């Protein structure tokens, strides 16, 4: 342990067990000091979160019921639920919702399972573990913008993906024009998204795995537990908290799909890859309709809340 400077120092309290003068008074002073230092420590982060997450969120909520534009000489007026009426009547919005659901339904299970598999593969010490750890995390340290550009190039009709498919199938598979075909554009984006983000969740799984005491595994081995049983009865229960964290973060990230679409397809072809956030940014930034974009963001936010509530309920502790 690295606490040696403190641990080796002589402790006057232990060597002179004299009764402490006016113990209740000391306790009260200590209590007050703890409150003041505690709040002083919490304050910087709490204030920044208030200023740059909470207030803008509340602001967005309010703007959704107005006619605000990003730059406009007209005063902002309250318009009630007009933006929502327009939104729910917009087929593009329903298409975006469908696309994001499709994306999430595939990405959440596949990506969390792959990430856990990767974490298990590199959890134990073996020769070259650092190498594999680094390689698995490589796609994550590559920016989603760079990744999207790179895959945009690889997904071309004459690109690397089609060449690889043709080579490995001995010419049987003739590749698609991935991003220009409404049927294949979303699967193509799904593949690259999992490729890019699995390593991130691998790190979270890994942190969870390494918090499980090695003694538990030793005990299980002494009891003659198989590797599957060790996973089932030591690893899996030990990952309880990590599990819900990974599920919630992947789902929210999946619903928030934006970068890939923005760089690769701009929502096309035929709205087959448009997403809720992409529609929000398109109307809010490009068309400067802050209020309509805020309404979309609000619907999105409610959706995220609902889904994480359901997920939390499903992964709750069963007594």
């Amino acid at each position, binding site marked *: 342990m690295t606490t040696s400077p403190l641990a080796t120092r002589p402790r006057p309290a232990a060597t002179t067990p004299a009764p402490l003068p006016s113990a209740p008074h000391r306790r009260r002073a200590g209590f007050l000091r703890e409150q003041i230092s505690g709040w002083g420590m919490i304050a910087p982060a709490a204030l920044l979160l208030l200023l740059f997450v909470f*207030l803008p969120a509340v602001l967005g909520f309010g703007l959704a019921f107005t006619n605000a534009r990003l730059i406009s000489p007209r005063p902002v007026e309250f318009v009630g639920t007009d933006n929502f009426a327009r939104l729910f009547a917009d087929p593009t919005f329903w298409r975006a919702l469908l696309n994001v659901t499709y994306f999430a339904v595939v990405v959440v299970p596949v990506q969390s399972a792959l990430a856990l598999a990767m974490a298990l593969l590199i959890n134990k010490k073996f020769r070259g573990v650092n190498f594999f750890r680094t390689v698995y995390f490589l796609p994550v340290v590559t920016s989603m913008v760079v990744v999207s550009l790179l895959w945009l190039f690889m997904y071309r009709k004459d690109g690397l993906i089609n060449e690889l498919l043709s080579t490995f199938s001995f010419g049987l598979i003739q590749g698609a024009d991935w991003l220009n075909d409404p049927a294949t554009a979303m699967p193509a984006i799904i593949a690259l998204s999992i490729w890019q983000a699995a390593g991130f969740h691998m790190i979270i799984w890994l942190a969870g795995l390494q918090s499980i005491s090695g003694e538990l595994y030793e005990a299980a081995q002494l009891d003659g537990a198989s590797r599957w049983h060790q996973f089932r009865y030591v690893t899996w229960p030990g990952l309880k908290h990590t599990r819900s964290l990974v599920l919630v973060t992947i789902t929210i990230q999946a619903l928030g799909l934006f970068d890939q679409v923005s760089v690769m397809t701009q929502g096309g072809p035929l709205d087959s890859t448009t997403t809720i956030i992409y529609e929000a940014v398109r109307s809010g930034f490009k068309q400067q309709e802050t209020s309509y974009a805020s309404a979309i963001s609000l619907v999105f936010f409610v959706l995220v809340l609902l889904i994480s509530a359901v997920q939390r309920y499903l992964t709750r502790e069963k007594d």
Partner: protein
Amino acid sequence: MLVRILFAAVAAFPIVFMLVSSLKPDTQIFGDMSSVAAFLPVGNISFDNYAAVFDRVPAARFLVNSIGISAVTVVLGIFINSLCAFALSRMEVRGKRVVFTVILATLIVPFQTLALPLVWWVNQLPYFELNGFSLEISKGWLDTYQVQIIPFIANAFSIYLYHQYFESIPKELDEAARIDGAGWFKIYRQVVMPLAGPATATVAILTFLPAWNSYLWPLMVVQSEELRPVMIGIQYFFQLNVSWGEVMAYASLITVPVVVLFIAFQRSFINSIASSGVKG
């Protein structure tokens, strides 16, 4: 081991392809595509694409900007978030449960939903500037460095990670230090933080990546070329004739520093886990 290698091949092949292609002229990139040469630096290899990149965009300036913005965000983020998590985890502060719940609740708001109100909001914030001896106050943070840094310092996920980690450090260490007369900040700095190396490494990586990779945000709030970060530079390559070799060279240029830094962090990550004896 075969499975490990298979996963590694899938993870690495696009990146190898990018690095290798950045060294080739366009005609050769397409010529090599159908063979293993696509992943090998063979044939007409040169750094011509990189030279062309520096001609086309102020790449050095963009790199300096991104390094500065990311470094400041990471250092301040580690300090402020760990301090907050320390108080929430190890001190008996009244109301800390409510605060922690509210902080965790902010995790649920994705940045993209905040982005648009945030643009409006940062434009209303006052901006203090010390000009010689006089303090100048102006309105609006748009087109500055701090608009790219300050909103991203405090992070609920970093606080959560530190909190989780601090919970695993025995509280008896704090009590021992308090008997020695240590104040709370001293306990934070000399007892808890030295043991939290792995959490710090994780938070550093997870703060650095979005700072370096940010695209949507600077696109909306930064207009001046001299303030732009690296990701915005990508736009420059699609303005006239697209040269994929140059695109791959710029992509490599802004990816390689991160990879190098990550490998350095990776080592400290593993070492600190091994030396701090987390497992007992």
